[in-house]
């Protein structure tokens, strides 16, 4: 025996642009189910019922919640990717996932926001620490180079076989002076 079609089947098979209009009435304009039924009859010559609109609205709202949370997380991810020097890919993913969860949750609370801020803060701190270490390494490298130059210059200065002109030339070479 064929199954009875669901009440909202007619609405779910509407062309995409009409579905968008329907969503707009229900979600953005927040108009009553009765008014939606009336509008569809007047504008589209479509007979429906309050029950069908109610079913459609429930499913649309349910789907919309996840779709919008996903979009929000994607937008955030795209923003974070604009600054790859601050957040690595794994951190970007962790932040986007948390943002998605906050957006999708009905009862997002301060604790969850703190957790998100902690992820961001930890990464920023790690990045600063890495920059400090890099600077220290560069300082050490410069000091080592200067020390080597000083030793080489001293060796040249103490070499009795060199004339003053030769000595001056060699010392310039040691310090990279043309």
């Amino acid at each position: 025996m064929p199954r009875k079609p669901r009440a909202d089947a007619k609405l779910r098979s509407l062309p995409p642009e009409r579905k968008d209009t329907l969503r707009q009435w229900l979600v953005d304009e927040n108009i009553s189910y009765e008014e939606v039924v009336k509008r569809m009859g007047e504008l589209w010559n479509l007979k429906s019922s309050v029950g069908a609109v109610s079913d459609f609205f429930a499913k649309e709202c349910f789907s919309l919640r996840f779709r919008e949370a996903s979009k929000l997380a994607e937008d955030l991810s795209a923003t974070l990717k604009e600054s790859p020097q601050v957040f690595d890919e794994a951190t970007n993913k962790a932040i986007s996932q948390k943002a998605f969860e906050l957006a999708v949750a009905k009862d997002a609370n301060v604790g969850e926001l703190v957790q998100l801020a902690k992820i961001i803060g930890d990464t920023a701190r790690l990045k600063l620490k890495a920059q400090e270490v890099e600077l220290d390494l560069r300082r050490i490298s410069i000091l080592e180079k200067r020390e080597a130059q000083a030793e080489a210059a001293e060796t040249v200065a103490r070499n009795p076989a060199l004339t003053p002109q030769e000595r001056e030339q060699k010392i310039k070479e040691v310090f990279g002076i043309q």
Partner: protein
Amino acid sequence: MNHAVIRKLILTALAESGGYAVPEKALLIAFNISFRPPLDAPAFKDHLSWLLDRHLIDYLKDDLSEDDRKFLITEKGQAALKRF
């Protein structure tokens, strides 16, 4: 609401989530906001188990907290959703 419709709605939610994992609690709350009669947690877990057993969904655990499982739709789940 019959079981098949509930399972299809769970798959729909996960498919709309664009690859982000959905916490079990958030999924149940969203479901109960939109549909009547509301489902209790054990009944909802049964539906999740049914979908998990058939590899239509998968889950992961959060490394940062002791929160509940977070669900994702599998390729098999995506294909099943199109057939519904």
